């Protein structure tokens, strides 16, 4: 199948959009036609084939209707919320009021030259799946955290998909202005099948603190390709957590640019796969300025025939001195058929740095198992306990909050089933 040809054929089926978006779509489609999709020759796509998530029956479809949010959603009733159903903004389920923050759909303004230009710029660098995202973009969210505001409640973006063979593409922009503090949670869920393309752009300004949590909890037949790109300015701090529980084949890229001195990022990830799930995470941190730090912990729990892939790149540019960077990837294989691939990579062009990475792949520690079993736990109970502890290691990098408890409960629930 010629994928790029297929997507230019079905492009006409997209619902009409505001003028700036129409322009972005066409530009991106041209970009996609020119670049094509990554092939297995592409090192970044060594373990995940583009053809696994692309098929002839994919295409844009009219948005379905949703009467209530799905059960697993992590939202509390009083928290700000923007809901995108099949890539379209759903006003009835959303609560856009937030103290200290502006939350609105991407296409809220018919004429939005600033945004249009910004998107066009982002698209001009996009290839493959990034170009696909912009070419089929229907809507998304813009979240602006006001300067010096401390937004106490997490702001939720819930992406819900319905129907079969759907290609849905959304884009979320998060701008944390100077000295602000906030938490944004993106949740991907739904029913049916198809391909979800979800890109998020984040800018954390001077001395702002942002926590961004991404929960990929798709239905079993949905493919998911997503990207989080963040730029951190002076003394900015970002905590990015990616949790992957669902989907058939999923691929998430997280790229962080530590653009100015004092910027610090903590990137964590937890991927849990079973059956024949395939989960690929690709992280990239660029230390563009001196005195920047990055710390990363990714963990995988793989059962049945699931496959987990982790690639973590740390890049230290020339003259970016006084860098501290650590990266860990640990994989727990619960069955003989599970597969783990890990590629922790360092590229360092400065000398005054302290960078370390570690990776392990193995099964449950027999000594811990023995300890628990000698105290009367069954093998199943002991495995469950050890696995939950293994996963919580990642989740507990978040400060204590009702949100963290909900997330931990969701993860524990997944492990019990």
């Amino acid at each position, binding site marked *: 199948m010629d994928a790029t040809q297929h997507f230019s054929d079905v492009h006409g089926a997209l619902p009409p959009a505001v003028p700036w978006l129409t322009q972005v779509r066409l530009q991106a489609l041209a970009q996609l036609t020119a670049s094509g999709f990554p092939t297995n020759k592409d090192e970044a796509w060594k373990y995940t084939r583009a053809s696994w998530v692309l098929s002839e029956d994919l295409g844009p479809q009219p948005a379905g209707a949703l009467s209530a949010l799905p059960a697993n959603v992590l939202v509390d009733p009083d928290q700000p919320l923007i809901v995108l159903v099949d890539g379209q903004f759903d006003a009835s389920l959303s609560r856009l009021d937030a103290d200290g923050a502006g939350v609105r759909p991407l296409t809220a303004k018919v004429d939005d030259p600033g945004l249009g230009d910004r998107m066009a710029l982002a698209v001009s660098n996009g290839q493959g799946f990034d170009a696909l995202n912009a070419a089929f973009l229907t809507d998304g969210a813009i979240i602006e955290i006001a300067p010096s505001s401390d937004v106490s409640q997490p702001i939720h973006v819930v992406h819900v998909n319905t129907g079969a063979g759907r290609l849905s593409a959304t884009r979320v922009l998060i701008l944390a202005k100077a000295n602000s503090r906030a938490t944004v949670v993106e949740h991907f869920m739904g029913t049916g099948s198809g391909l979800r393309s979800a890109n998020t752009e984040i800018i954390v300004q001077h001395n702002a603190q942002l926590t961004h949590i991404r929960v990929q909890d798709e239905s079993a037949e949905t493919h998911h390709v997503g990207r989080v790109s963040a730029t951190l300015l002076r003394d900015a701090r970002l905590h990015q957590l990616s949790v992957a529980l669902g989907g058939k084949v999923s691929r998430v890229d997280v790229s962080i640019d530590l653009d100015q001195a004092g910027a610090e990022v903590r990137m964590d990830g937890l991927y849990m796969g079973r059956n024949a799930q395939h989960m690929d995470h690709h992280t990239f941190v660029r230390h563009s300025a001196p005195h920047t730090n990055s710390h990363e912990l990714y963990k995988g729990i793989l059962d049945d025939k699931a496959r987990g892939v982790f690639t973590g790149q740390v890049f230290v540019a020339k*003259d970016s001195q006084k860098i501290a960077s650590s990266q860990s990837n640990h994989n727990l*294989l619960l069955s003989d058929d599970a597969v783990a691939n890990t*590629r922790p990579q360092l590229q*360092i062009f400065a000398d005054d740095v*302290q960078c*370390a990475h570690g990776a392990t*792949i*193995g099964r449950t520690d027999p000594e811990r198992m023995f300890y628990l079993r000698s105290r009367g736990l069954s093998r199943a109970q002991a495995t469950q306990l050890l696995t939950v502890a293994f996963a919580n290691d990642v989740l507990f990098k978040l400060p204590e909050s009702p949100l963290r408890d909900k997330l931990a409960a969701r993860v524990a629930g997944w492990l019990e089933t």
Partner: protein
Amino acid sequence: MTQPTEVEKLVNEHQEYKYGFVTDVESEGLPPGLTEDTVRWISNHKEEPEWMLDYRLKAFRHWLTLTEPEWQHVTYTKTDYQSISYWSAPKKDSDKPQSLDEVDPEILETFEELGIPLHERAALAGAAVDAVFDSVSVATTFKGKLNEMGIIFCSFGEAVKEHPELIRQYLGSVVPIQDNFFAALNAAVFSDGSFVFIPKGVRCPMELSTYFRINAANTGQFERTLIVAEEGSNVSYLEGCTAPVRKENQLHAAVVELVAHTDAKIKYSTVQNWYPGDKNGVGGIYNFVTKRGKCLGDRSHISWTQVETGSAVTWKYPSCILLGEGSVGEFYSVALTNNYQQADTGTKMIHVGKNTSSTIISKGISAGKGQQTYRGLVQINKGATGARNYTQCDSLLIGDGCGAHTFPYVDVRNGSSTLEHEASTSKIGEDQLFYCRQRGLSEEDAVNMIVNGFCREVFKELPMEFAVEARKLLEVSLEGAVG
């Protein structure tokens, strides 16, 4: 105040590359260029049987279909394969020296300068040296003693003539001609090399060593080494290299194949100190080598140890294919890049058999504008239940112009295996330096000491004489990197 020792040191510094001298032996060479005729000429000149020529031609024809790989993290001017000569040999090839006395005294002098007077060193260290000077073996010692035990240690050319059945059985069985660009090229035009065969149950009584040396200008050297260890045998092989100063880049594309049968153990140690180019990155050797060992039998064991301080561009991955149940692969490496040197090196451990284990210890030191990359693969196949790997790769940075990069690939396909990978990159700690300086060591001595400590885990794997040489090499190679 200048003290005598300092004067000496200054002189040494200006001496630049210590082993940079050219032996004035008239070389009998082929004109530059590579065609099928070149391959036929080499084969004919070496009086090879037809099957050997067929093998070379097959490799050459395959090579024509390949393009030079570009994925490695190095930049260099590509070799024009039509502008180098594929054969050079000491003139007196027709009447090869039968014993040391017959060896051209000029060549023997070269070895003297290198610090390995053949007879003395052989006697002292109890090692047999199959000295490869340019492309033809000129001397083989201790042959009689080894012969008595049934050990074959000879030049590759000789082995093709005298032990064709062994060569036909094992040649290309670990590194097939289709393997990669440089392996194919080597298979087509290899000039000579060493062949070692250790029969069943024999423990080789001495360390086998060979000295490679590139001499004639404009000659790529294509060595081929094949070591076969039969059931229950044991051998340790040393390989050390130096090369004279040349302005053009010289290509070295060697292939080393190791085969270990049941309960056999092969230990392969390398000290590589070829001309690294001058301080501005001009000249130096391109070292593009394919080294691979096959642990064919159960409980077989292959261990690679390398100290890489030379060459302008190094690109090699000594690897182990662990087929036999309970077989063991090891890789210990110290690589140093100074000035404009580049190295992209590492290993591959392919676990196929049950309960196989592998250890990788890699230490990289980058100084000046050196760029260094560790690239490795640990693959644990579905059937390799109970496999185990431990990997540690550390990089040390000296100076703000250098770079250190790590690209490990880990691929685990069954749940009963355990794998650990650790890596770190940092510069020499200020506090460590301060501690040493405060106790009266010069900065250079302090750095040397810290670097030595950093490499200790690898050095202790080297045979003793090699360990001493390796330590000295590092010190020489690091000169000018500090202060």
